[in-house]
């Protein structure tokens, strides 16, 4: 079940509501007397920036405030390309300058408190901002304390995750460049669910690509917390065998529980491996701000459960959650986060206008992974919301089993277009 009883009743009234209001939206604007409705969006990443933009597009009478601490957007997609030296940080860094042109009020701050009864957000900078509807798109919190010794080793600069693009991406690139030929790069994959299922395997491809050109005697040990390659298995197996034979030592069922930054070792239940560069990616959960709103409500208190027609929390009214923080069968990708954002933006506009949102939206995932410096593969799937079953993958989709040059070109094009769709 994805709809609770109240939502179901809303949905079942949809047909009638449309007949009454579909022709003249101005006759059914927000019933409240206090003027324009106000939506506050937390986080200007894939989900948040897209949602803010599309709310303004579809609901020009709605005020939108977007809160984000960073000056610029740094994209995780294509950050593995930076590690391989195919692109630089400038390329994956984009400004927020165009968002105010859509009438979005940008607030450079960090949300530190949420009162969901009074509908007020509090920030580190001391602001109190009230909302009619709140959108949380904070990405993931990386649980570094689940790996013993991680925090100390990270502080000493001996281990990074680089699972949020930014300074750690730069640091990891430098470490790879400084590594001697014949060195060992140790990387780990967290147990699912985690941000970007194919991301670790793409990273292994692209680091191997770099080694092949710059330091061909080097090796990669890939410690996977999962029982098998968690995404695009045929594609990555093809790439490792074709381009990097003997370079990638893949070890499934091998989640790290400890890191030692002095000895430069990573320990799992079965192995203790020593590396020159350590890239341990710990387990994750919904961004911290979700805890503040009380919406990290799945059985492990790790992810947020939502009504998939609106992305509103199943437990806290007027709070919508987007992107990686959501618990669902949809992959945790930037592409998917922007789709959540579009469905939620449309639903929020309809709800604030007193209309019923579409009960059965259709979304798609398109996710490219580079397999070398000139080839890539992809997965493409359409998902249709079934009110009983959640998002159902439609027939005909799937992943490529080999890389191709055309898809490398399209992967870059995808990035340019999705960044433009969010930010331009």
């Amino acid at each position, binding site marked *: 079940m994805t709809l609770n009883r109240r939502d*179901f009743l809303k*949905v*079942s*009234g*949809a*047909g*009638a*509501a*449309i*007949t009454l209001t*579909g*022709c003249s939206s101005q006759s059914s604007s927000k019933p409240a007397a206090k003027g324009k409705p106000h939506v506050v969006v937390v986080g200007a990443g894939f989900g948040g920036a897209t949602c803010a933009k*599309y709310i303004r597009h*579809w609901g020009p009478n709605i005020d939108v405030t977007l809160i984000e601490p960073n000056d610029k957007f740094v994209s995780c997609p294509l950050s593995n390309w930076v590690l391989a030296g195919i692109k630089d940080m400038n390329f994956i860094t984009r400004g927020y300058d165009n968002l105010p042109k859509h009438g979005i009020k940008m607030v450079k701050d960090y949300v530190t408190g949420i009162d969901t009864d009074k509908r007020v957000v509090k920030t580190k900078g001391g602001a109190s901002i009230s909302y009619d509807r709140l959108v949380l798109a904070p990405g993931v919190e990386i649980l570094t304390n689940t790996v013993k010794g991680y925090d100390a080793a990270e502080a000493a600069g001996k281990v990074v995750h680089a699972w949020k693009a930014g300074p750690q991406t730069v640091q990891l690139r430098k470490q790879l460049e400084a590594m001697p030929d014949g060195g060992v790069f140790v990387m780990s994959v967290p147990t699912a669910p985690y941000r970007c299922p194919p991301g670790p395997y793409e990273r292994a491809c692209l680091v191997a690509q770099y080694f092949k050109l710059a330091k061909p005697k080097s090796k990669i040990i890939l410690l996977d917390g999962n029982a098998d390659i968690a995404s695009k298995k045929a594609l990555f197996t093809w790439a490792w065998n074709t381009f990097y034979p003997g370079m990638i030592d893949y070890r499934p069922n091998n989640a790290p529980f400890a890191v030692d930054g002095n000895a430069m070792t990573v320990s799992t239940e079965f192995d203790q491996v020593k590396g020159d560069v350590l890239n341990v990616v710990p387990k994750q959960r919904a961004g911290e701000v979700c805890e503040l709103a009380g919406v990290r409500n799945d059985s492990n208190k790790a992810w947020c459960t939502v009504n998939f027609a609106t992305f509103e929390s199943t437990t806290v009214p007027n709070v919508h959650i987007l992107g990686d923080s959501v618990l669902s069968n949809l992959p945790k990708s930037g*592409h998917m986060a*922007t*789709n959540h954002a*579009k*469905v939620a933006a*449309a639903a929020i506009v*309809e709800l604030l206008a007193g209309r*019923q*949102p*579409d*009960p*059965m*939206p*259709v*979304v*798609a995932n*398109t996710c490219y992974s580079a397999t070398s410096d000139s080839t890539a593969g*992809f*997965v*493409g*799937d*359409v*998902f*249709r919301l*079934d*009110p*009983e079953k959640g998002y159902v993958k*439609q*027939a*005909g*989709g*799937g992943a490529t089993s080999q890389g191709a040059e*055309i*898809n490398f*070109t*399209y992967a*870059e*094009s*995808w*990035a*340019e*277009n*999705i960044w*433009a*769709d969010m930010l*331009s």
Partner: protein
Amino acid sequence: MYNKKTTLALAGFVGLALSGIAGAADMHTQVIAATCMSCHGPGGNSVGAAPGIAGISQDRFVKAMQDYKTGKRPGTVMLKLAGGYTDAEIEAMGAYFATLK
């Protein structure tokens, strides 16, 4: 599958999609169209190697999508995606993209 009430609600949406009220695409169609823009650029105007889709005729759009569905037209990711949409959705998306500049 769907129960009766949901089906009725859905019929409301489809009815709206087909009736073309005020000449504007219904939200179901607009949201699908918006999801296309992640690859085809804001408003359907690509800033990369992928083709733009703003302003293409409905006929051309529908034929391309149907040919991707059957595999008659060569392609890449569209071969995986086209089959996920109903004929009515493809018609409605085509009508909408034709209005974009």
